[in-house]
């Protein structure tokens, strides 16, 4: 039972990293990349809501470092934003867990948007990259992935803590 849970957590985390590493084919249409969700955030927030880990923030930070390397982003950028998002989620977990799925998805979208904006601002400050208005789209995809996780991951494992 216990090993099952860990296996499931590990599988989703590895899956998220794999999808992060996956790149669109070179000749893919431009708009496709705006639908790209923040896989790591969706998985991390899912597990934080379902079964808040004691070191969730640290795990999120470590995963963020890996995501930074995969994306070739400023080292520490994803780490910081993911850690912050997971911390906030863990803080309000008891309240959030009572929400309806749609409300939870709304929260995830909000968190995704906040992290995305924070990263865009940091990048703009550091490298001078432009902030695109399409920034609003990926958080919706992230929320969709979250809903998918809630629906698809087997029920029994949701009784982690309670």
């Amino acid at each position, binding site marked *: 039972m*216990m090993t099952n*849970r*860990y296996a499931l957590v590990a599988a989703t985390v590895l899956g998220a*990293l*794999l*999808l*992060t*590493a*996956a*790149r*669109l*084919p*070179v000749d893919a249409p431009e708009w496709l*990349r705006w639908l790209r969700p923040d896989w790591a955030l969706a998985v991390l927030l899912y597990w934080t809501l379902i*079964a*808040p*880990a*004691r*070191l969730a*923030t*640290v795990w999120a*930070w470590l995963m*963020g*470092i*890996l995501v930074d*390397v*995969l*994306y*070739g982003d*400023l*080292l*520490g*950028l994803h*780490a*910081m934003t993911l*850690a*912050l998002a997971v*911390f906030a989620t*863990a803080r309000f*977990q008891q309240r959030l867990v009572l929400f309806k799925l749609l409300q939870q998805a709304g929260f995830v979208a909000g968190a995704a948007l906040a992290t995305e904006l924070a990263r865009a601002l*940091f*990048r703009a400050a*550091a*490298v*001078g*990259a*432009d902030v695109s208005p399409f920034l609003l789209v990926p958080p919706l995809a992230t929320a969709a992935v979250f809903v998918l996780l809630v629906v698809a991951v087997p029920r029994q494992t949701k009784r*982690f*803590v309670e």
Partner: protein
Amino acid sequence: MLGRSSLRSPRRRRQPTADSLFARQRSGIYGLSLLIVLSGLLMVVDQNTPWLAPVRSVIGTVLNPFEFTARAPYLAAGKVTDMLADRVALLNRVTALEEENQELKGALLRFDAIAQENETLRELFNSQAPLEHETLIAELIGLSQEPKEVILDKGWLHGVNVGQPVIDAAGLFGQVVETTAVTSRVLLVTDPSHAVPVYVLRNGVRAIAVGDGLGNLTLKYAAATLDVRVGDELNCSGLGGRFPFGYPVGVVTEINQDAAEPFLRTTVQPRAALDRSRHLLVLTSIPTDEARTEANRRSLPLGESLQPGSARGLPLARESLQPGSARGLPLAEESRG
């Protein structure tokens, strides 16, 4: 969290099913602050120094299996397409390639002769810069938009190193900014943090071409009196030492002069097909910084007066020897080290 809160375990007694990893915590604000400070530190160091490059390289190499697994479907799809490809179409393609190969070989015959002559002349002038470079063909396996980079399927195992220029069939493509064992990241010439020392082919005027982040380049600090026109070809001037002399960089497509501004606004269209090329050449025999410094010291008689003996003084001396060097600029080439 870290430190204090992780020691706070009595709460767990009320939840006998929860193990240490999944137990709830009350607060982790200290741990969070620590992580944020750590992230900030990492970002500052990463932005301003090349110290974290080995860390990235190691983590990236560990993550290589992910990249390759993620890439597998595309590779498989490519194989299937190859298998299903029409025989006639393939034959036509082979014929076309053979013809092109013949043409290129013909052109190369003359090039060889000219290169030989040039080499002899250079020897007469005691110049040591080699004309030819060893190259490595690499295939593009991924893109990233911010920063504008592409990922190649060759890494340090194949001899790719940070700082090496990358070209395609038409011109300068970018430079390697990060390598793992079997992949590498190439910063495109159009990225705002990328600068190339160039010269105008028509009259030899030197300038620095910086990416504008929108798919073009622009000439940085081009004085209003600079002799540059629309249609001018820009080539690498080789002055920074990083990009070898002569490779085409782009064509000037637009010049705006605003009387209120001290500098020209120019748009340079890159020569390389940045959004189309799939096979690129990494120039692997570009001398390292140390070797270059050594060569400068040997070939330039001025060197001794500029370099006060100690090896520590050399990097500084190199910049003063090469005023056009992009390395001397604040947003220079190595900024993303």
